[in-house]
C-alpha cells in the first residue's frame, strides 16, 4: 500500500503494522500504533512530528533497543526480508551497527566521556569484524576524515569533551558508518546543535546517503530540513501516521490538517513572528488517546465523524496517503486557497 512506483531501487526496510505498547504503572502507553512504511536504498524518509509522537520509539524499535520485558511490540520490521522482531537478542546484536546504524539527538551525551573518540569508533569496527586494533583504528581515522574532521589521525586521539558539538555529531556519523550499513537512522541529529552547524550536519547526512548508498530515516521536527533532503515524508501524530507521501506530494499538496498546521507554524526568513500560526492545544496523552481521529481536539476543520470514527490511512484519488475524514475536494480547496497563500506570504 505504500508503493510509490520507483521500482528500480531495492526495498531495505519494510515496516508493517508496527505497534509499540509500554506497560507502565499508570497503564498502557500506546506509543506507536499500526505504523507502516518502507525505506529504500538511496532514499531519505523524513519522519516529522511533535515531541511524543512516537518518532524515536519507532527508530528504537527498529534498532531493537527497547526493553522487551516492559514493551509489547507487534507487527513486522522486515529488513531485506527478515523480520527483525523475530531475531534472538544475539542475532539482533549482530544487525545493530552493521546493517542498521543509528545516530542520536544529543551528541554531547552520546559519546562516552572517558574514552578517546578514535577508540570508540574503532570499538564499533571490532564489534562486528575480527581485525587487529591497528586496522580498526585506521578505519576509524579514515571515516573521521570522510565526515569532515580535519587532522583526523590526531583528532582521533582526543576525548569527546575536546570536540565541538558539530564535530561530535560528525564522529557519531563516522561511528555509524564503519560497516557500510544499509540503513542509517538519524534521530533528530541537529536538534542539539547551533543553527550554523545544523545545516552542515544535514548536508553531511545527505552526502553520506549518496556516498555510502544507504537508506536514511531522518527523524526531525524541522520541516525545512525535510523539504530539502527527504525523498519521502511521513507525518506522525500520537503514534500514528497522519500523512505519508513523496516530498513533492507533501510539499506541493499536503492533505492533512495537521500537516497544514505544521507548515503554517514553520518560520521562514520572510515571515514575521506574528504571522506564524501555532497549532493550538497540545498532543494527547498516549495513556488515554482520544476516540476517533487523535488530532480532532486540535483540528480547525473537524466535523461530525471526527470524534467517533478514526479515519484510516488511505490514498485519495490523484493524491497520496493520509488519515483524514475531509472529502478530497475539500482538502484540495483548503490547500490551494488557504494554506498556500499562508506559507508563501511574504508578510
Amino acid at each position: 500500500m505504500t508503493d510509490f512506483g520507483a521500482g528500480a531501487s531495492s526495498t531495505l526496510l519494510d515496516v508493517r503494522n508496527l505497534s509499540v505498547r509500554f506497560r507502565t504503572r499508570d497503564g498502557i502507553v500506546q506509543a506507536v500504533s499500526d505504523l507502516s512504511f518502507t525505506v529504500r536504498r538511496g532514499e531519505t524518509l523524513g519522519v516529522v512530528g511533535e515531541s511524543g509522537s512516537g518518532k524515536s520509539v519507532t527508530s528504537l524499535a527498529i534498532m531493537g533497543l527497547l526493553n522487551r520485558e516492559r514493551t509489547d511490540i507487534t507487527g513486522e520490521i522486515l529488513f531485506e526480508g527478515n523480520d527483525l522482531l523475530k531475531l534472538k537478542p544475539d542475532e539482533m546484536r549482530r544487525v545493530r551497527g552493521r546493517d542498521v546504524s543509528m545516530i542520536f539527538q544529543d551528541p554531547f551525551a552520546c559519546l562516552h566521556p572517558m574514552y578517546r573518540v578514535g577508540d570508540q569508533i574503532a570499538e564499533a569496527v571490532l564489534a562486528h569484524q575480527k581485525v587487529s586494533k591497528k586496522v580498526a583504528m585506521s578505519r576509524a581515522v579514515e571515516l573521521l576524515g570522510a565526515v569532515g574532521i580535519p587532522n583526523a589521525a590526531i583528532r582521533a586521539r582526543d576525548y569527546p569533551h575536546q570536540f565541538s558539538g558539530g564535530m561530535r555529531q560528525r564522529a557519531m556519523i563516522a561511528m555509524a558508518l564503519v560497516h557500510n550499513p544499509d540503513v542509517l537512522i538519524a534521530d533528530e541529529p541537529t536538534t542539539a546543535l547551533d543553527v550554523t552547524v545544523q545545516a552542515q550536519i544535514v548536508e553531511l547526512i545527505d552526502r553520506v546517503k549518496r556516498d555510502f548508498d544507504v537508506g536514511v530515516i531522518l527523524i526531525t521536527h524541522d520541516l525545512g530540513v525535510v523539504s530539502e533532503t527527504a525523498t519521502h515524508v511521513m507525518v506522525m501524530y500520537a503514534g500514528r501516521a497522519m500523512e505519508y507521501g513523496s516530498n513533492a506530494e507533501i510539499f506541493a499538496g499536503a492533505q492533512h490538517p495537521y500537516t497544514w498546521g505544521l507548515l503554517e507554524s514553520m518560520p521562514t526568513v520572510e515571515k514575521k513572528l506574528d504571522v506564524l500560526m501555532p497549532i493550538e492545544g497540545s498532543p494527547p496523552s498516549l495513556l488515554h488517546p482520544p476516540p476517533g481521529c487523535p488530532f480532532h481536539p486540535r483540528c480547525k476543520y473537524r466535523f461530525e465523524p471526527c470524534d467517533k470514527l478514526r479515519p484510516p490511512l488511505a490514498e485519495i484519488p490523484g493524491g497520496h496517503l493520509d488519515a483524514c475524514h475531509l472529502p478530497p475536494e475539500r482538502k484540495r480547496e483548503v490547500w490551494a486557497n488557504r494554506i498556500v497563500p499562508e506559507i508563501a506570504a511574504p508578510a
Partner: protein
Amino acid sequence: MIYIGALGIALLLLGGAIIATFSGAHPWWWVWVIGVIAALVAALVSGSGMALYILRRLVWAIVVVNVVVFITFLVFFKLPNGDPALRFVGKFPTAENIALVRHRLHLDQPFYKEYFFFVKNFVTGDENGWPGLGYSYGNYVSVRSEILQRAPRTLWLIAGAATMWLIGGVAIGVLSAVKRRTVVDRGAMGFALFGISAPVFWLGLMALYLIWKQLGLTDGSGYSPIDQGVGQWFGHLILPWSVLALLYMAIYARITRNNLLETLGEDYIRTARAKGLSERTVILKHGLRASLTPIVTIFGLDMALLVGGAIITESVFNIQGLGWLAYNGAITQDLPTVVGVVICTATAVAIANLVVDIIYAFLDPRVRFA
C-alpha cells in the same frame, strides 16, 4: 612520554625515601625534596596536562600537610593554658626533667623559633631518625619508633580489608545492578543492609567466638608479625579483615549498584548498544568505567580515615596498631605520642587524597584538562 619517565623516577625516589625511613637512622628527607623537584622539572619540560595536574595536586598536598602541622602545633603547644613542658614531661615532673623538656622542645625560645624547630625535626629528622616526631617521656621511647612499631599492624589490617571489600563490594554491586529486581539483587541488598547495620564490636566478638573459639579455624586475637611466619600472620588477620571488610563491602556494594544503574541510563550506553556490542562489554567496559570514579574518591578517604580510625577493630581483635597507640596516648596523657599519631595520620590522609586525585585523572580525562 618524557613526563611518565620523570614521574617514574620521582616515584622511585619517593619509594626509596619511605623504605629508608623504615630501615634507618639517617635523615633521608632530601630524597623527598629531589622527588618533588624531579616532578616539577618533568611537568615543565613536557608541558603535559597530566604532569601539570599531578604537580598542582602535589603542591596542594604539601600545603595541606603544612597547615595540619601548624594547627597541631597550636593545639598542643599554644592554645591550652599552663606550661607545655609540664604537659609533655610525663610521669616524673621533677624540676630537672621539666627544664630538660623545656630545652628540648625549644620552649625557652621565641614562638617562631619553637615552631621552626618543630617543623625542622619533622622534615629533616631528629636524633632518633626521620621523621623527627619527638620523644615520649611517658614510655621512654621515641615517638618515631613507637609509630614504626605500630604502623605495620594497622597498615596490614587496612590493606587486607580494603582488598577484600573493594573486590567484593564492586562485584556484588555489579551483580546486583545487572540482576536488578531479582532474588539476587534483593539478597545482595539485604546482605548490604546487614553489613551496614551490624556493629563491628558485636560482629567481631561473634566471629571470634564462633570461628576461633568454637570451631578453631583461625588463630584468634592479637597480632603476629609477617616475618614470624606468613601462616600465623594470616591466621591472626583473617578475622579482623573480614569483619572490617564486611561493613565497607556493604557500603561499596550499594554505591556501585546505584552508580551503575544511573550510568546504564546514560545516552552513551545506548550508543554502545547501538554499535552492536555485547551486553557484557556494555556493562563492564562502558558502564563500570564511568561508575568507578566516585568509588575511587570514597575509597581514598576511607583508607586515609582508617589509618587512625580502625580503633574498634583493633581493640576487639587486640591488634594494638596506630588507633590503639593514639587512644592509649590520650588516656595516659602521653601528649608527644598523640601529636606524632595526629601528624602521621594527617599526612596519610593528604597522601591518600593525592593518590586518589591522580587515579581520578587517569580514569576521567576531563579532570586532567580542567
